[in-house]
């Protein structure tokens, strides 16, 4: 449930022009905003939405990779994958904690996810039919996540920025691990190479979509940039990702599935960069709105875990209450 903190805190702030100007001046001076500081309600709401979505993405993100834990091909890969998926759960936990500092509870956020009111990254609505997908998620999906998240280490909201420092360190390890899985396939038999290429064909465009709509169509971007929650636009980050990833694919002999991809020396103020083809925004919006291949399965899996675990959570609370009661009775008896 929402705590009183959230409900009260917005209305307590007299959002006068002077207050908003003082707040913006702190942001402009690169001061970190901390949970007990006065902040505009819209800033608080934006962060709750964004950190909540980010936490949900980590939790739902455990599912596509979790799909291969019991089938990982070697003991080493199995342990690394299990540890990786566990890391994602850990990221979810820090992020929920960071959001809780803004006055929203984890239970409330979970209910929002399960009811479909809160979103999570659409990339996790694609399936992982082959082992190569585990490598591809590490390389491309974690790679794209890092592009998004490294600037968040400098986000104006302190708890989020600090959570991101650790998350980014782990994500960067995951990205290298994923690339190493793909590289091993690319150096393997024809069947393995084919498995890797097929997987890249399926994940490339969804990975580019992870950066969100074009800047012109992104409703939340401008204000978030002003508040220094965001430091780069969606299109800037997408371009950085393409420029970093294309040479990595070339190095291991995989082909990016984009006939329009070509080097453009004029790009990035003359430093050079890749031109790339148009994204299929119909697909993007279809998946965001629930029409992707795995949306229903992902939410069903989270609902099942939540519902099947209810009796366990209730038992833990009941036991804690009983212990407290017994301790109180024992204390009275001793007196």
């Amino acid at each position: 449930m929402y705590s009183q903190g959230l409900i009260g805190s917005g209305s307590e702030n007299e959002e006068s022009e002077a207050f908003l100007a003082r707040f913006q001046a702190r942001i402009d001076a690169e001061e970190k905003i901390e949970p007990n500081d006065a902040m505009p309600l819209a800033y608080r709401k934006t962060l709750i939405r964004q950190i909540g979505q980010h936490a949900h993405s980590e939790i739902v993100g455990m599912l596509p990779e979790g799909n291969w834990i019991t089938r990982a091909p070697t003991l080493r890969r199995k342990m690394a994958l299990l540890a990786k998926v566990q890391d994602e759960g850990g990221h979810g936990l820090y992020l929920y904690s960071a959001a809780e500092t803004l006055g929203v509870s984890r239970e409330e956020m979970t209910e929002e996810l399960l009811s479909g009111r809160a979103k999570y990254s659409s990339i996790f609505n694609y399936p992982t039919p082959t082992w190569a997908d585990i490598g591809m998620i590490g390389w491309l999906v974690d790679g794209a996540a890092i592009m998004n998240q490294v600037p968040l280490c400098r986000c104006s909201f302190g708890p989020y920025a600090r959570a991101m420092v650790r998350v980014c360190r782990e994500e960067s390890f995951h990205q290298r691990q994923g690339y190493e899985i793909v590289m091993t396939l690319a150096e393997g038999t024809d069947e393995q190479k084919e498995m890797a290429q097929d997987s890249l064909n399926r994940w490339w465009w969804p990975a580019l979509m992870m950066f969100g709509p074009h800047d012109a169509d992104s409703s939340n971007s401008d204000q978030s940039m002003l508040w220094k929650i965001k430091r780069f636009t969606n299109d800037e980050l997408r371009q950085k990702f393409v420029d970093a990833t294309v040479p990595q694919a070339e190095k291991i002999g995989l082909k990016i599935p984009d006939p329009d991809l070509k080097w453009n020396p004029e790009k990035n103020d003359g430093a050079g960069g890749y031109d790339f083809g148009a994204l299929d925004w119909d697909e993007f919006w279809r998946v965001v709105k629930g029409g992707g291949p795995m949306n229903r399965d992902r939410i069903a899996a989270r609902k099942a875990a939540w519902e099947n675990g209810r009796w366990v959570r209730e038992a833990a609370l009941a036991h804690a209450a009983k212990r407290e009661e017994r301790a109180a009775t024992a204390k009275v008896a001793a007196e």
Partner: protein
Amino acid sequence: MTYAQPIKTAFVETLITLGDDHLILGHRLSEWCGHAPMLEEDLSLPNMALDLLGQANNLYSYAAELEGEGRSEDDIAFLRNARQYRNLLLVERPNGDFAHTVLRQLYFAAAMQPFWQATLNCSDERLNGFAGKAVKELATHIRHCGEWVIRLGDGTDESAQRMRKAVEELHIYTDELFQPNAAMRICVEAGLIADPAAQRDIWNTTIATIFKDAFLQVPEIAFPQQGGREGLHTEALGHLLSELQYMQRTYPGMTW
């Protein structure tokens, strides 16, 4: 260390037997990842699974080395048939609900922790190293799962009933924890491992202490189930292996 026959064969088989326990139980725990009753358990269950898989990896690697026939730890883990696995029946039992999972883990850890503790006094240095690690890890498994057994046994009516059901279904597999197979008995005689049978009293005390706080009864078992140590498994193992071995069987001989 080098060992002469018949000790060498018995020791390799024993390392594989112990590795099988850890691999199969680690596999079962790993099935929970992403589906646990709360986020904290989505972290704890994989932690315990990683401890077990790490031990399996160590035990198989050592077995492969001692054997010296060119098998790798992965060959041992992935390329045997169900009849060749020597794990306890207890560890292959399906996860069931959370009550079953924590109880199964408690039963196993409460027997293996004193086993590894006693194995620290045995003569093989390499195995002692594994034992030292296992003693610490399994102590945390006993604590974590023991606390859950108490919480569930002394929680709500529903949780208490589920906990009793788990005891009823799993206790019949616990006798086997204390029954070494022929290879293990040779290793016990040779001073390479502790005697699993000698850990029964410690196990009884641990379980009795936890069950008292959990308001659970230790049941009388008319027909204890065993056979895993001889490769005679329940039907659950074959299905587990078909997942575990999928990649190695589908794409033989490839590097991953």
